[in-house]
């Protein structure tokens, strides 16, 4: 019997929580790819720190900088729990930062689903409808045995 299931998601890197190095966690490589994809889309770059409004620096695991938001949206992985946290000072730019967070989350989940289906021996296609009025729409991942 077939079914339709809706899922809520959260990023958590279990290998890291088990004591593995970040580089040894497959989820980390997907997360990095998700941030890099967002950087390409927004003509930005990635780095390892964020700045607050007063230009104070804080190191993180990866950060996205764009021409429109050079303080950066950072990501930090809690080494004890594997939980992923966003770091930023969104003063005066909360909508822009929210958009970048959504881009990274949507990229990560798209990459993870595509990779999971490939690992399950599905032929995978990704359909990205692009943006409407500047906002990206839902992305479709299809897997066929």
């Amino acid at each position, binding site marked *: *019997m077939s079914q339709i*299931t809706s899922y809520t*998601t959260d990023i958590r890197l279990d290998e890291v929580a088990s004591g593995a190095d970040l580089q040894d966690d497959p989820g980390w490589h997907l997360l990095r790819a998700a941030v890099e994809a967002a950087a390409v889309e927004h003509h930005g770059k990635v780095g390892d720190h964020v700045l607050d409004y007063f230009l104070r620096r804080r190191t993180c695991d990866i950060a996205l900088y764009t021409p429109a938001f050079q303080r950066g949206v950072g990501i930090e992985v809690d080494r004890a729990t594997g939980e992923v946290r966003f770091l930023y000072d969104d003063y005066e730019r909360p909508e822009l930062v929210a958009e970048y967070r959504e881009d990274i989350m949507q990229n990560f*989940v*798209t990459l*993870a689903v595509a*990779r999971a289906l490939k690992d399950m021996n*599905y032929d995978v296609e*990704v359909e990205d409808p692009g943006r409407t009025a500047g906002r990206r729409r839902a992305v479709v991942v299809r897997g066929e045995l």
Partner: protein
Amino acid sequence: MPQIEVVVDREGNFRADFSGFPGTACEEESQNLERALRALGLPVKVKSQVKKSPAQTAAECRLDETGTGPAAAGAAGAAGAAGAAGADPPGGRRP
């Protein structure tokens, strides 16, 4: 052919439509997908689940056998998903 179509929203939540799975294969496959995602750093929680009727499932399987079902419909404008991470970065596929 069995097919899974996943729609990922802006918050990273998603809906998975399992079609063309006979018997209990669908439930097993949804659990396999959940396990695979967890191993990739994406633990998921089921928000809602709707079982398709036996007639609907049978129709999906019949349609597929004739080559006119979801599996044969293709995906207009779809980009291939492959690469080092197992899939192209979404941002890299847009024109």
